[in-house]
């Protein structure tokens, strides 16, 4: 799935960004805090609309989508890994994946299969029945990864995924990313963590500074 941004700007956050990302590429968006990395990911995920410019995903301009079509695009195409632990704290690990899978599954059985597969891929299946507020930071991050993968999206967007993780959990995350790359996913990681500097399989690296691509 080809991603193409043409002269994309968003108020003061990013200016005139044009990039092309091919299917199955692993991209690193590097930049300090406030450089516009998250804004760029939000625009690709259709969480925000650009002030100007166009965003083409497989030839379709998603910046023109209505709420309904944008929601449909997010459901089928995007897996988003946030830097903050946005989770349903009072629910179990398994239940946290129900809202995402309800959109794509009509039978409880296939829904369960999809959830268990995603939990296994994110190496959190052993905690399926644990309530979220009993999880460690690393486990919460793996749950967020599982949630991003559960609908088998083609594009995985990661916003500062290791910001709240220790070295051990960060390495677990890197191994998962490599597995996803092997599965043919297109992955974009926005980070300022030097850990990603030496990551194998990185296809392109963009550096953002004050909303401009260097």
């Amino acid at each position, binding site marked *: 799935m080809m991603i193409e941004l043409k002269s994309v700007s968003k108020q003061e956050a990013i200016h005139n960004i044009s990039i092309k990302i091919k299917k199955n590429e692993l991209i690193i968006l590097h930049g300090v805090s406030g450089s516009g990395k998250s804004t760029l990911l939000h625009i690709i995920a259709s*969480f925000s609309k650009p002030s100007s410019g166009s965003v083409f995903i497989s030839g379709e301009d998603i910046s023109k989508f209505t709420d309904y079509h944008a929601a449909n695009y997010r459901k089928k195409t995007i897996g988003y890994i946030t830097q903050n632990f946005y989770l349903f704290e009072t629910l179990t690990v398994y239940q946290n994946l129900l*809202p995402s899978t309800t959109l794509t599954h009509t039978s409880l059985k296939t829904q369960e299969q999809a959830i268990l597969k995603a939990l296994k891929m994110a190496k959190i299946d052993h905690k399926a029945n644990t309530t979220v507020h009993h999880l460690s930071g690393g486990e919460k991050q793996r749950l967020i990864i599982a949630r991003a993968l559960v609908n088998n999206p083609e594009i995985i967007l990661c916003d500062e995924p290791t910001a709240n993780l220790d070295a051990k959990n960060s390495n677990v995350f890197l191994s998962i990313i490599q597995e996803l790359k092997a599965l043919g996913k297109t992955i974009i990681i926005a980070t300022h963590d030097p850990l990603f500097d030496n990551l194998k399989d990185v296809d392109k690296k963009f550096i953002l500074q004050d909303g401009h691509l260097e």
Partner: protein
Amino acid sequence: MLTKFNLLLTLLVANKKEHLPLFILSTLIVFIVASVLFISSSIYKELSYTLDDQADITIQKFRAGHVEDIPASYLNEYLDINGVNAAQGRVYGVHFYEPKETFFMIVGLDFYDPQITKKLAQLTNKLNVDDFLKRPSMIIGSGVKKFFDEYHYFHSYNFRPPDRSIQKVYIYDKLKESTNLVANDMIIMDINLARKILGIKDNYFSDIILKVTNSNEKEKIYEKLIMKHFDTRIITKEEIAQYYKKLYNYKGGIFLALYLVALMSFLTILYQRYTLTKSHELKEITLLRSFGYSIESILWLKILENALIAFIAYIVGVIIAFWYVFWLGAPLLKNIFLGDNNLPSPLTFITAVDYGTLGILFGIFIFPYLLSVVIPLWKMGIEEIGEVLR
């Protein structure tokens, strides 16, 4: 469908802390309003029954603005009027019960009239006319029974007629509790015994009642009755109905105040909910949108979630109210209705449910409830996901 229902339940569990206080308050308010509604319907039904039993025309004798006993000779004169199907004299009056400084209503009935005894038998647990008339006996209302028991008049009570003699009357039976609204303070006895205790001369009645089958003739009969005796006051069933209606409306005013208080509290809670921008809800909606839910589908999901809570709160409130009114007899609330009653009444409300009003209550309850949920959600939903996720 199953996955959606599963999600609905999951979200309910996830948000139980947010839902519980509103659920409890809503149940309480529905309970109060529904209780008032049930009591109101029950009383209205009972008053309608009472009205059905009223005579078409009641005649009292007046002198210098005072009611006085009416001669039995009037009875035959009235029976001569065309259109009057039946006429009957009644004997009744109040008895002052000194220990409690309260009044009982003594009603004298003709126990040789099979129609009267048949009707009375339905209101008592046992009635054998021969046994009843063997010695001076009475059938008493629940309130009277309670006071008699309190002062150890378990078997009989000594009345003091105006001639200062002592008249011992035995307690034969108690009236059924379903009659309490009108007969709580009532003592029923033989007509001649009642005359003696109340000081009414033989061949006199307290008033006379007439039965008129053709209601179109009532006006003519009214004129003829006046022509017969100018010293009488004629009260029609319609006038009694008006009196009950006024009484009911007066009570209705109190209910209305209760309704308003309950509804105001409910609306205040909803307004608070509406104005409270909950970061928790904003986070949840944004998360759902980021997964691929459209604003419309989130609204429907939230409407269903809250409608389920509101519906359960409504049903639970109504069921508790039904139990409170018709099983427990509405302690506390019933005192509002019995304020002008002579004796405190162990009233049993007859089951009466006004489904129309319950339906209106449902509408009044559920729509503001859902609006208070939907409007803030819609406002939250139009925010950009990216702004919230930062």
